[in-house]
């Protein structure tokens, strides 16, 4: 399953502070959409609104509409916990649960929610998710070992396995490779390309080569100055954004003239 995400003049606030202003865009299913832009422009804030994770910070709120296959994510009777079960997330720093084995980490989406499953079912889900995250061959002999014993790149793929194990519709990745070496980064990038076969993938990145390598659509965000809200400057097909952008700001940023 993968879903189309539609943002309609979305504003994100932290208390009274407007962090991201008036974003309207459509994120296509079965594609990779990259968010690029300088630090502080609100890319991470915006990606966190897609699964209502920004609400974890007290005082954070959203105005406007966010539709997932036409369903309002911020509707009055929507439970944020149920949204997050359908929209998985991978963070900047790998964060496997230190008290759990590799297998339990993969199954944590089920186990932490007290869902019961048979042993065979658990093994099937574990293998499928680890294969999907290109980690199965490296860890199949040590599934009962703690996840924190893996290398940084392996830990990040474990976190991706954990996210896809619950079979979400959308996968959000917030700078998933910024803490990793180039080889692990390449592994994660290959994985992202495979994931778009089944999921809607949104990735925040500071690495413009990465955005141009793997994404189908690219959204460029910018900020006019500190204290001012971040804005969506340009959103188009990746080739267009990187080779022939409409806006001068985008051109400056992707050609490395600022930011």
């Amino acid at each position: 399953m993968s879903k189309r995400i539609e943002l309609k003049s979305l504003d994100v606030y932290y208390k009274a502070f407007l962090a991201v202003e008036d974003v309207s865009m459509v994120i296509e299913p079965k594609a990779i959409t990259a968010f690029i832009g300088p630090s502080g422009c609100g890319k991470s804030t915006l990606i966190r609104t897609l699964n209502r994770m920004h609400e974890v910070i007290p005082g954070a709120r959203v105005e406007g509409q966010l539709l997932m296959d036409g369903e309002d994510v911020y509707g009055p009777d929507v439970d944020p916990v149920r949204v997050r079960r359908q929209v998985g997330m991978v963070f900047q720093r790998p964060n496997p649960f230190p008290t759990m084995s590799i297998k339990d980490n993969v199954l944590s989406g089920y186990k932490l929610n007290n869902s019961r499953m048979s042993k065979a079912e658990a093994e099937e889900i574990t293998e499928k998710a680890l294969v999907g995250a290109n980690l199965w061959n490296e860890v199949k002999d040590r599934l009962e070992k703690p996840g924190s014993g893996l290398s940084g790149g392996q830990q990040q793929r474990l976190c991706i396995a954990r996210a896809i194990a619950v079979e979400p519709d959308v996968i959000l990745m917030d700078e998933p490779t910024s803490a990793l070496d180039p080889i692990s980064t390449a592994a994660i990038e290959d994985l992202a390309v495979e994931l778009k076969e089944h999921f809607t993938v949104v990735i925040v990145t500071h690495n413009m080569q990465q955005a141009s390598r793997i994404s189908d659509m690219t959204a460029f965000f910018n900020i006019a100055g500190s204290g001012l809200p971040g804005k969506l400057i340009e959103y188009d097909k990746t080739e267009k954004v990187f080779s022939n952008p409409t806006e001068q700001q985008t051109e400056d940023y992707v050609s490395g003239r600022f930011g």
Partner: protein
Amino acid sequence: MTTQLNSSFRGTQDLPKWLSPSLLVGFFLASFGLQVLLASNSDSADINFIPVAIFGLLSFTLALYVISRVIEGVRKAKDRLVTIMVSTAFSLALIPLLSLAYTVVTKGVARFDAEFFTFSMRNVVGEGGGALHAIIGTIEITGIATLISVPIGIMAAIYLVEYGRGTVARLVTFFVDVMTGVPSIVAGLFAYALFVIFFGPGVRMGLGGAIALSLLMIPVVIRATEEMLKIVPNELREAAYALGVPKWLTVLKVVLPTSLAGIATGIMIAIARVIGETAPLLLIAGFTASMNYNPLNERMMTLPVFVYTSYANQGVDMQAYVDRAWAGALTLMLIVMVLNLVARLISKYFSPKG
């Protein structure tokens, strides 16, 4: 040779490794010899070890500093001086501890026998008797206090770290700080006053002692748990939230297991802290020579109170009472040691591996 000396990283020569310890031994022996000499001249056979230590240490420090300054230079001489000062401070801090352990063990072994652990003091005058009633009382009262304090303490800490915001949380934190400083006798008086309301004046009850101890324990448990919950990385909570795990399950299944080892250690330390309390138990649990297994009825002996009463109300065979007091003190110390050991084992086996 000259090329080596020209290298800018090469400093002056180092003192040989054996010099400093042999100087130390030498100066202490010299200082001791001087004292023996002085003592033989002044007809007093006693040798006082305190001036020996002071004189030996001062002369050793001075000698090493001067030698080091001449051979090694100013910076290393300073380093040696400070090393001596820090080591001396450490030794000074250790002396009372070792002396205490030594005294309690040597005086406690006299009555550290089977009878001590199998008999109460009922109908015992003079020799014999034991502290079984006090050991049982201590275990029951401290156990009940732990049962009361641990759930309250852990849940209060969870509230403070995971849920509490604004004025209420600040107030709770403030009162926890105040409670940490409540004198134990006040806790005893409070428990007594509380039980007088229900059972009338002159009430004595083991449960009252447990209440008084839990008043002292709760703030310690809250503080320890709070610190442990705070060091659980926020990324783990976010990881759980992002998987669609509700907050209460995140706390229960991610935050608590991650900090379990630290919390268990904190609880053990809190128990060790209150198990030796005397004053509140004297007030509300009272003292008795008889066995009492029922914390809801009548007086109950505890080890610290046993030590106190054995020493304070000595009978005809004075030495028997004093010996029992020391044996009680030794038992209490061993219990605290075992608790600390258990805490270390828990933190070793439960802490996240990786």
